[in-house]
C-alpha cells in the first residue's frame, strides 16, 4: 500500500529514527524506525512497508505492512498485510491477516461489548509530551530482552 494521501496522517519518513514514547491524537504513518511505545488512542497507526517498529502500540486501528516487534492493542481493528512481519500479541475486536504475512504471537479477540482495554501497555516515561498532534519524547532507547525469549503472554519491554 502506498503512503496514505489523506492530510490527516502525520508521517514519519523512512530516514527517521525515533527512540522513546510516541503519543498523539491524530493518525500516524510510520515508514521509519521507532523504538519505545506508540500511543494513539482513538486514532489509526499504519506501519508502512519500510517501517521497523519495536514498540507496544495502542491505537483504534493498526495496519502493519512492515516490521513490528511488539504487542498490538487496537480498540477496533488490526490488519497485517502480506508483507507484514509481526512478532507480539494482538488484542482487538477484529483482525485481518493476509496470506503471506508472518505472525508470531497470540490473537485475543475481544468481542464488541467487551471493550478492549486502552490503558497503556507500558509505564509512561517521565517527560512524556502529549499534544493534539503526535509527540515524541526521548527515552533511553535501550531494549530489555529479545523478542524470541519474551513470553508472548506478557507485555514486551523496549
Amino acid at each position, binding site marked *: 500500500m502506498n503512503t496514505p494521501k489523506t492530510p490527516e496522517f502525520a508521517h514519519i519518513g523512512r530516514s527517521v529514527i525515533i527512540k522513546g514514547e510516541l503519543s498523539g491524537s491524530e493518525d500516524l504513518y510510520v515508514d521509519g524506525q521507532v523504538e519505545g511505545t506508540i500511543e494513539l488512542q482513538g486514532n489509526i497507526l499504519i506501519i508502512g512497508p519500510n517501517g521497523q517498529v519495536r514498540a507496544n502500540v495502542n491505537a483504534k486501528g493498526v495496519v502493519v505492512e512492515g516490521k513490528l516487534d511488539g504487542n498490538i492493542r487496537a480498540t477496533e481493528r488490526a490488519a497485517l498485510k502480506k508483507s507484514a*512481519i509481526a512478532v507480539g500479541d494482538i488484542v482487538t475486536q477484529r483482525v*485481518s491477516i*493476509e496470506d503471506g504475512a508472518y*505472525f508470531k504471537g*497470540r*490473537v485475543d*479477540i475481544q468481542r464488541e461489548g467487551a471493550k478492549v482495554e486502552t490503558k497503556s501497555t507500558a509505564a509512561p516515561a517521565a517527560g512524556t509530551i502529549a499534544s493534539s498532534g503526535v509527540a515524541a519524547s526521548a527515552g533511553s532507547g535501550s531494549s530489555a530482552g529479545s523478542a524470541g*525469549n519474551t*513470553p508472548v*503472554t506478557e507485555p514486551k519491554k523496549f
Partner: protein
Amino acid sequence: MASVANSFMKLFRGSSADPGQATGPAQGGQRLSRRSSGLAELARLLASEESLCVLDLGSTSPNNIRYLTERGHKIYSEDLLVASTDPSLVTKDEQGNLILDSKKFLADNLVYPAAQFDIVLCWNLPDYMDESLVKPVVGRVWSMLKPGGMLLAFFHTKDAGPDAPCYRYHIVGTDTLEMRHIEARREVRKGPSGVVHTAVGGGFRLQRVFNNRHIENLFRDFASIKFFLARDNVREVLVVR
C-alpha cells in the same frame, strides 16, 4: 464523517478473519479441500464451552484464527518451518558437517510456560522440518501441552513420493481443511530475528518419510496415539499427552 469512516475501512481491506467476510485470493497457489478425521476428533473438543488455548505451528492462517477465536478460544501462531530456515541456526558438528543448532532454535522459538496449551496443530511440520529439529521440537511440544492435551500432525506415506508439495492448512469446517501449496518465494526477506531468510526460495521439500514405528517412537512420551489413514497418501496422527 462518512468519508473518514470509508477511508478507515479501506486500510483494512484484504483477507479477513472477521466473521462473515470472504477470504482473499490464494497467494498464487492452488486450493484443495480435504476431509480430516483428525480435525473432526479435535472439533469435539473445540466445541466445548471451555475456552481452550491452541497453538498453530503452521503458516499464519487467517482462517484458523477466525475459526478458533469465533469459538472463544485463544490462538497462538508460530510458523516453525519458516523459523527453521534462519541462517543463523547453521553450525558445524564435531566432524565439521553442517547442522542446525537445535538449542538455539528452541531458545528462539516455542518459548512458552509448561502445560499452557490444550491443542497443538503441527500439520505437516515433522515431514518438512530439518531432521535435527524434529525430536527436540516434539519434546518441547510435549512439555507445553497440558496433560490430556492433543496434538495433530500429518505424515506422508512413502507412496507420496519425494516431491510431495508442502501445504499450508486452513480450517474451513469441523472436518474440512483447505490446503494451499506454499509457493516458492524468491524474494529475500528479513525474518523475525532480523536475519535474512532465503531457504523458502525453492519451496519446502519433503525431508523424510516416517513409518508407523518411527511415528510411535517420535511420540513415545505421549499417553496415546491414534492413526487415521487418508486417501491422499497422508496419515493423520492425533496424540494425547
